């Protein structure tokens, strides 16, 4: 049994100069067989494992990860959490995730620092204003707490913003989700890993999958760099590398892998206490607790597995934000990095069974997966445990591409794709 993190355990360990903290999770060698194996130790994979164990009593399970947990997109995103999408099926899954985030620190006994500081999505063209108004109506019908705000209110919420009506892209208003915000991305991965480990889940790092073994029409296990692992249920949750893994099982995916970059500035005093997304000009920004401005933008347009984006995309993002926030023009940038995002044609995720029995796939979160982690894990675990799509996961099946039943969020998602 793991000891609980609390003010008392902190005091107890402080007395011993923090020498006696136990490891947050074990590093077991892979067993020969599991009831279920999750490929990919990012947020979505770890959350799936946690809910499989917690909600469905499956504890003889493993998460295999080729690098270290949370080393992919979970540790590379800009940590924005919101749920104000246009389509009903999107609202259902993203709002489930957002609401789970509210109680996640308590549920996992791990402070993932959910900060509902508000997400402000700027309207900088007439078209964008109308599109957000439409989303606002759709969201209100779905019961989300969101509203349109005027340029004067925008200025009140974010005093450093440029509301000059004569600039190239003037702020005509904004769409505001006060319950959205940010979280500590690494802590989400670590918290799920620790909580899943406590329920008996084996988290196996530095273990790359090299093949998926099948017999007839069903999966029987995995070949990995740490040996063969048998399992009758395999969930593939590998984001940008999903096509590579699914190729091993002969399943072709409607996915393109692109590079999305983010960057942070040198730390400064608090200047912005919400998240601002400026989608027409392609840039979004928030401030971390350390004082760094966390900045993201659009993807590079071409297929890319290198985790290094182009300077062009960065320049585009920074140019847009300097116009929106003139105060940041002399800030130096500290770090920049890229992650490989898995883009679908309709910019909606895939949570699905496959034509191969026992093989499940959770991918396609593209540029916006972090916000969805708890909801995605919750419904995907249910899908895997019961071998049928969870009600919320059902619209996101692979079959939608043949049926022409797309969940079009490519414009409505309001992110720079």
């Amino acid at each position, binding site marked *: 049994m793991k000891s609980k993190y609390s003010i008392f355990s902190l005091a107890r360990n402080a007395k011993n100069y923090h020498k006696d903290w136990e490891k947050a999770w074990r590093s077991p060698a892979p067993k020969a067989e599991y009831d279920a194996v999750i490929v990919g130790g990012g947020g979505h994979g770890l959350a799936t494992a946690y809910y499989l164990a917690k909600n469905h009593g499956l504890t003889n399970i493993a998460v295999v990860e080729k690098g270290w947990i949370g080393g992919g997109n979970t540790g590379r995103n800009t940590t924005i959490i919101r749920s104000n999408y246009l389509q009903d099926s999107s609202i259902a899954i993203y709002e489930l995730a957002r609401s789970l985030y509210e109680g996640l620190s308590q549920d996992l006994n791990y402070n993932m620092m959910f900060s509902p500081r508000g997400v402000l999505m700027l309207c900088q063209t007439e078209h964008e204003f109308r599109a957000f108004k439409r989303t606002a109506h759709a969201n209100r019908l779905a019961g989300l707490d969101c509203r349109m705000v005027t340029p004067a209110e925008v200025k009140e919420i974010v005093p450093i913003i440029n509301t000059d009506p004569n600039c190239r892209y003037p702020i005509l208003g904004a769409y505001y989700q006060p319950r959205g915000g940010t979280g500590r991305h690494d802590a989400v991965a670590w918290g799920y890993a620790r909580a899943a480990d406590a329920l008996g889940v084996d988290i196996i790092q530095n273990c790359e999958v090299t093949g998926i073994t099948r017999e007839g029409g069903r999966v029987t296990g995995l070949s990995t760099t740490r040996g063969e692992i048998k399992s009758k249920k395999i969930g593939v949750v590998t984001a940008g*590398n999903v*096509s*590579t893994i699914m*190729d091993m099982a002969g399943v*072709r*995916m*409607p*996915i*393109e*892998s692109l590079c999305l970059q983010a960057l942070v500035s040198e730390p400064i005093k608090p200047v912005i206490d919400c998240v601002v997304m400026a989608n027409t000009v392609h840039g979004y920004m928030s401030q971390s607790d350390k004082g760094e401005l966390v900045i993201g933008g659009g993807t*590079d*347009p*071409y*297929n*890319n*597995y*290198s985790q290094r984006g*182009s*300077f*062009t995309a960065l320049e585009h993002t920074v140019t847009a934000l300097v116009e929106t926030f003139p105060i940041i023009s002399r800030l130096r940038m500290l770090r920049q990095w890229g992650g490989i995002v898995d883009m*679908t*044609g309709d910019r909606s995720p895939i949570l699905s069974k496959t034509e191969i029995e026992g093989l499940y796939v959770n991918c396609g979160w593209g540029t916006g997966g972090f916000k969805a982690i708890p909801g995605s894990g919750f419904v995907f675990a249910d899908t895997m445990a019961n071998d049928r799509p969870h009600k919320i996961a059902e619209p996101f099946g692979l079959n939608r*591409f*043949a*049926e*022409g039943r797309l969940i079009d969020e490519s414009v409505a998602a309001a992110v720079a794709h």
Partner: protein
Amino acid sequence: MLVVTCPICNASGDETDFHYGGQAHVRRPATADPLNITDEEQRDYLFIRHNPKGLHFERWRCDRGCGKWFHAARDTVTMEFKATYGITELPPVELMKEAKGPWADYFKMRMKEKA
């Protein structure tokens, strides 16, 4: 940053001077047989993408030069352009040999048609 050279007009520039056009060598099944096309064939044409880590065949447009579309073979890990060639042409033979998955089948079929 990518450095791209157009095989038609020889203009050279970075990726902002060109436009990326996605996966190349995809045949539209409805062109050959519009009446008997299945939903799955149409899905494969519209959405399924060969998304390899490594050699990728793709289309580019020479935006600020001659304006023509052309083909390129590029490595998606190193970003190196292995070849660029005309929009109606096939890649160099050694690259066709390296091609995997649906591209390998496609090139074989095209070579047969040529022969």
